[in-house]
């Protein structure tokens, strides 16, 4: 087990470095204000890594105190991640007022539903309870992201490449986290070290996607949206489409009437 542990520490250090690099890019590209929760999330992950190093060096790996500290920090990090995902959803959808109002309700219901479903169908053993909650939260976040992207796709909404890359990173990480946790519960309980290693690898992969996105994509400029049209134009457009639809509808009704007279 020592080899994976050593390798895990190397990758752990790499993820911490990646987080710092990402925070640097967020500041350098002046994205902190528009991506506040994302920035706070990465700050939390850096603090969590530092806390992990201190805890593991001072306390016993399997002690109750270590477990409490690490899992408490994990709860904070997951909450921050969910906040960053909500912030991303707002950035993508908030400029479409009607769609955003609908999406808020649907996505939160989906996330809450998945979380409840996960709680009901999970293992009730106390030792696995934290893992279960953690996994349920990740599944809820993944559902929220996938729902958000499907929403945007259905309504053919424009998504800024940076937000798209962030969503992919968050989605992939959450999905693989769920798979990883489930494998641990089912088959890999004796290989906790390897599970931790896989977790770090998954996070590192997502981190690389995010770094590349923040480094490469320019911050979104103002999108040209239909909302920017005046209410007069808006009214005129809707009146025009009304007339054309009525014509189409009359045509179809006429056809159906003629069809019904057939033998």
């Amino acid at each position, binding site marked *: 087990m020592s080899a994976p542990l050593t390798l895990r520490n190397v990758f752990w250090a790499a993820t911490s470095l990646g987080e710092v690099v990402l925070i640097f890019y967020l500041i350098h590209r002046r994205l902190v204000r528009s991506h506040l929760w994302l920035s706070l999330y990465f700050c939390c992950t850096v603090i969590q890594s530092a806390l992990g190093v201190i805890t593991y060096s001072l306390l016993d790996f399997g002690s109750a105190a270590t477990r409490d500290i690490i899992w408490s920090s994990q709860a904070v990090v997951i909450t921050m991640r969910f906040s960053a995902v909500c912030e991303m959803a707002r950035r993508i959808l908030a400029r479409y007022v009607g769609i955003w109002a609908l999406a808020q309700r649907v996505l939160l219901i989906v996330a809450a539903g998945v979380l409840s479903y996960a709680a009901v169908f*999970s293992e009730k053993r106390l030792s696995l309870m934290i893992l279960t909650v953690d996994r349920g939260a990740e599944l809820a976040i993944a559902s929220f992201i996938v729902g958000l992207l499907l929403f945007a796709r259905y309504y053919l909404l424009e998504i800024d490449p940076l937000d798209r890359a962030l969503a992919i990173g968050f*989605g992939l990480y959450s*999905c693989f986290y*769920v798979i990883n946790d*489930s494998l641990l519960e089912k088959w890999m309980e004796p290989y906790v070290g390897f599970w931790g290693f896989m977790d770090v690898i998954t996070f590192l992969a997502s981190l690389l996607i995010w770094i590349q996105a923040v480094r490469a994509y320019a911050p979104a400029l103002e999108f040209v949206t239909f909302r920017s049209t005046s209410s007069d134009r808006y009214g005129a457009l809707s009146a025009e489409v009304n007339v054309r639809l009525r014509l189409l509808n009359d045509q179809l009704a006429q056809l159906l009437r003629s069809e019904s007279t057939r033998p």
Partner: protein
Amino acid sequence: MNLAPLFFIFAALVLLGLLAYAVRPIEKRVLSPDSVFEALSGPRHSFRLPQILQSLQPSDTEFLERRGLRSLRQRVRSERTQIAIRYLNHLESDYETLLEASRILAVMSPEVVPMQEFERLRLSVRFAKNCFLMRLRLRAGLAPWKGFTTISDMTTTMSFRMESATSQIGLQSALAADRASFMKERGSGGR
């Protein structure tokens, strides 16, 4: 045996699949509102429905059989089936245009009615299913009369829904304009 981990793995894999689908670039060209409304004013394929239905009736080609031209009848029917399939493709395209227009309206609207949106989603799924079944029926040489009527009904329903949606948007924008002018008048009167 605890199946929960397997359920979670399955759910995560499904989500990964949906994620891959959702992030694919949109193949369809996103039309501007003006071009969608322009497309709506163009000739509709649905107005050829009676001719298509007539041509698919067995009675329409029976005289060929009576005259002993069985192979010609088969060829005519096969060609007409191909025309009906192409008609179905055009009908689908008409429906897509309507859907796109409805999406643009939803995007523009300051308020979206969830039930209408879900109803539209449900209608679209049903429309896609019926088109698929219709194609199967046509290729199998079965009578498609009933199916065509269902599909046409759905297009009509969609038009009704669109009309109701656009009326609401028009009303809202008119109210907003009235409110804005009222506020403006009040503001200028107060000074």
